[in-house]
């Protein structure tokens, strides 16, 4: 018996020895602490971005919202023509509450001495959290997402759509307080959480609501709810999706129903030309549909896990997604394939967004975009404007996009010519053939020295004609030539063939690896929203703080006896100050 005991004990010791890896690794434990400080500024090639710590929006009491299982804080912006000069409005949800404020952003306000006293003559006016334009507290259901109608907006009236955790949708006017409509009030359409909702671009009345169930519904704000559960008739069906229209003699909501993939539709995004819609699903698939034709025209599978977010490049050429593989994935709309993956996040990627203001044209300067660009950010682009932005018109050489994640980190990524050049469509053909994209699997190269981009036998061949030197094991999948895009997609999706090495999900070594140009911890809590604006970047975290980061040069140096620490800019001591301990942001 004693002998047995000795043996079994050693079995434990032995097993433990063979598995405990992190313990002796100094790197792993040390690295965790380096990034623990919250950053207040970061430098890029265009200059230094600074956190405006007086321009933090939150609940009026500024107390961090601290529920472990709450719904992400989302932010919606709208710009109106206001006599007073404050044109921007912000709406955000925190817990059971929804707030609507005037958004001041980086704007500098002169505070007259008579009010504040002689000490503080000129400074950035803090966000006045005591005076929300509107505030709602919900019981029994929790707001999850919202969107402003950009076609009907005015300073006097706004249409704000709000989705809820129990599936309902509310339309209200936070300015006039006259409109207040409920959709799916009886929860007969869908009982699950609203994940994403948006006004359909170009329509005053129609909006699209995506649910956790995997269904999306088109509603008309003028249609009545109807009696009883809605009836549907199948309109269209394809690999992994089906579309039903409402089957009712009287007009009622919903107008139609899209069922996509398995599990939640986490986010959708309309293309800048409003023709296409991209959906990021919990089943790990990115799907791109022609919204009017209701046809599937592109599919991608995450490296693994669900996709959480999706966005389009301002010119509609590229789609970026992020998700549970901790990666940001760049997918070329014209070639229908993954062109790059970004490695850097330490947890799931929650939001991705292109920065239309730092996207370079012909290698120099930023795109000179008017205020209209902001509207595109909000999801709706005036179609006549967007259609003029064709890939050939603007010779975009570099795209900039950002991502925020559950790792509390904010990252900026550049999609430069080195990544874009190899697959730029030749001639004027809009849709590259599959054979082109297949051949490009061979011509990949790694851009980084990151931990996972090891040299492979594929590296930098550059020659699209050369056969791919894959092992015989993977060869059949890789070399499958498919002539019709739809057939290829159907066969790929229906067989669930998501093994690496396919067009749907290429292997890590078969696509470019991007490294972030900026990677900063910017909050204590998971980040939940990211928005690029003309003069600033806005981020929100789970605690309900919405922070504004001024772009380089957007903060003007103030009077000598002013509060200079808040307004200095264009200094070059960024790298030193990076090491400074972070000051409390919510003070």
């Amino acid at each position, binding site marked *: 018996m004693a002998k047995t005991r000795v043996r*079994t004990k050693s*079995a434990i010791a032995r097993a433990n020895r063979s598995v405990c890896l992190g313990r002796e690794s100094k790197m792993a434990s040390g690295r965790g602490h380096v990034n623990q400080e919250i950053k207040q500024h970061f430098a890029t090639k265009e200059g230094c971005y600074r956190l405006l710590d007086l321009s933090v929006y939150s609940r009026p009491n500024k107390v961090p919202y601290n529920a472990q299982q709450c719904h992400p804080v989302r932010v919606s912006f709208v710009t109106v023509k206001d006599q007073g000069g404050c044109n921007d409005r912000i709406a955000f949800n925190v817990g059971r509450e929804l707030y609507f404020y005037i958004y001041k952003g980086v704007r500098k306000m002169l505070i007259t001495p008579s009010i504040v006293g002689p000490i503080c003559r000129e400074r950035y006016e803090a966000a006045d959290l005591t005076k929300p334009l509107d505030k709602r507290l919900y019981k029994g259901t929790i707001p999850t997402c919202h969107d402003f109608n950009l076609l009907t907006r005015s300073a006097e009236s706004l249409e704000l759509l709000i989705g809820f955790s129990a599936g309902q949708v509310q339309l209200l006017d936070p300015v006039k307080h006259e409109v207040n409509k409920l959709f799916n009030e009886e929860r007969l359409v869908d009982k699950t959480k609203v994940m994403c909702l948006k006004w359909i671009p170009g329509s005053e009345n129609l909006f699209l609501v995506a649910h956790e169930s995997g269904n999306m519904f088109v509603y008309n704000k003028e249609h009545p709810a109807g009696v009883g559960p809605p009836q549907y008739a199948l309109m269209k069906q394809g690999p992994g999706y089906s579309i039903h229209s409402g089957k009712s003699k009287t007009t009622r909501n919903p107008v139609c129903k899209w069922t996509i993939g398995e599990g939640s539709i986490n986010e959708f995004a309309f293309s800048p030309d409003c023709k296409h819609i991209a959906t990021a699903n919990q089943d790990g698939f990115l799907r791109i549909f022609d919204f009017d034709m209701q046809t599937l025209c592109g599919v991608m599978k995450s490296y693994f896990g669900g996709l959480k977010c999706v966005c389009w490049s301002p010119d509609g050429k590229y789609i970026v997604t992020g998700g*549970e593989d901790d990666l940001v994935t760049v997918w070329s709309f014209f070639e229908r394939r993954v062109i790059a993956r970004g490695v850097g996040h330490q947890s799931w990627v929650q939001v991705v967004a292109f920065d239309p203001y730092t996207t370079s044209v012909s290698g120099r300067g930023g795109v000179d975009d008017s205020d209209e660009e902001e509207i595109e950010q909000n999801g709706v682009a005036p179609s006549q404007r967007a259609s003029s932005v064709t890939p050939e018109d603007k010779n975009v050489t570099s795209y900039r996009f950002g991502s925020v994640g559950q790792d509390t980190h904010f990252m900026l990524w550049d999609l430069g010519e080195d990544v874009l050049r190899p697959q730029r469509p030749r001639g004027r053909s809009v849709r590259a053939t599959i054979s082109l994209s297949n051949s490009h699997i061979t011509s990949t190269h790694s851009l980084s020295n990151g931990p996972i981009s090891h040299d*492979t036998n594929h590296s930098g061949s550059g020659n699209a004609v050369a056969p791919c030197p894959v092992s015989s094991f993977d060869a059949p999948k890789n070399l499958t030539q498919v002539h019709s895009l739809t057939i290829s997609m159907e066969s790929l999706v229906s067989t669930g063939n998501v093994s690496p090495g396919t067009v749907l999900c290429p292997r890590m070594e078969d696509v470019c690896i991007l490294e972030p140009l900026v990677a900063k911890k910017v909050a204590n809590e998971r980040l939940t929203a990211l928005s690029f604006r003309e003069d600033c970047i806005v981020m929100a975290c789970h605690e309900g703080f919405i922070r504004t980061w001024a772009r380089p040069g957007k903060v003007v140096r103030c009077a000598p006896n002013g509060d200079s620490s808040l307004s200095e800019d264009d200094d070059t001591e960024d790298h030193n100050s990076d090491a400074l301990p972070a000051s409390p942001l919510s003070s």
Partner: protein
Amino acid sequence: MGANASQLEKEIGPHEFPQNEHYFGLVNFGNTCYCNSVLQALFFCRPFRERVLGYKPISKRKESLLTCLADLFANIASQKKKVGVLAPKKFVARLRKENELFDNYMQQDAHEFLNYLLNTIADLLQGERAKEKEKEKHSSTSSVSSKSSASSVGTTNGGSSIPNGKMEPTWVHDIFEGILTNETRCLCCETVSSKDESFLDLSVDVEQNTSITHCLRGFSSTETLCSEHKYFCETCCSKQEAQKRMRVKKLPKILALHLKRFKYMEQLQRYTKLSYRVVFPFELRLFNTSDDAINHGKLYDLVAVVIHCGSGPNRGHYITIVKSHGLWLLFDDDIVEKIEAQAIEEFYGLTSEIQKASESGYILFYEARG
């Protein structure tokens, strides 16, 4: 209990209830939740369950931990009812008899128990095989030396240090065993030497607000060996600076990941729990595989999670969530509940550093697809 069980059956629905599947809670005999939680997780690791159910001991009379486990699994699988509660009496008694570590009513570490159980089963199987061989030898009066197979181990420089290297792998190894390769590159002569180690599960350090993917990357990060930690390079025949990294060379069928949530605090002289929020996806691929790894893009599906509830290793509770036929179930000793897949979010951990008590994932079981 009975009411709870029948409610589960109702909740799943008669048509949706998987055929030939049984969801049985296990009675707690006083702090045996560490055992119950691991047993439930293993029961829903299909390859493991099938092997245990198919186990035929050579001697019927001799009771072992494996025969007790096989009896328990068979008992669950042969129940007439679909849901209910069983008492793993024989198994727990045997466990307490075999190992003094578990012979008390104290709270035990579920990971330690998992390790002990898998190693014990492997040892039993190897012992049985050795006996069988001996029998064959006796009957055939073979002249082959029994030591000949052992002598071939450890001659090459890439020689494996598998603890059971002398023995043939058992089905426990077949299911859970993976191989890590420890690559050391001498910074002087650039020679890379690698050493393999086998594992039945991986223990990973956890950090706040990270994913399991990131934690797995953590141990594969390159470490530079310098100053007093210099590495003896056999090519240079001297101590040199070197870079070391650990990568997965062989991916197991079932990847068991242990999150090192219990950390010894020097100041407090006791273990404390790291309730960090570490997210784990339903689907996983490894990034830290070696170049020569076979099928390194293997896709894994989450099948079971042992969850620790509470504030420290010696207090608290273990529960398990498992995926069975597309359903997610929560096993809390004798209670079995159906949960929504989204409810898994509750078991990632806490983002607040102040709270220590949490219900957080402790051992993750991922099964290779296909």
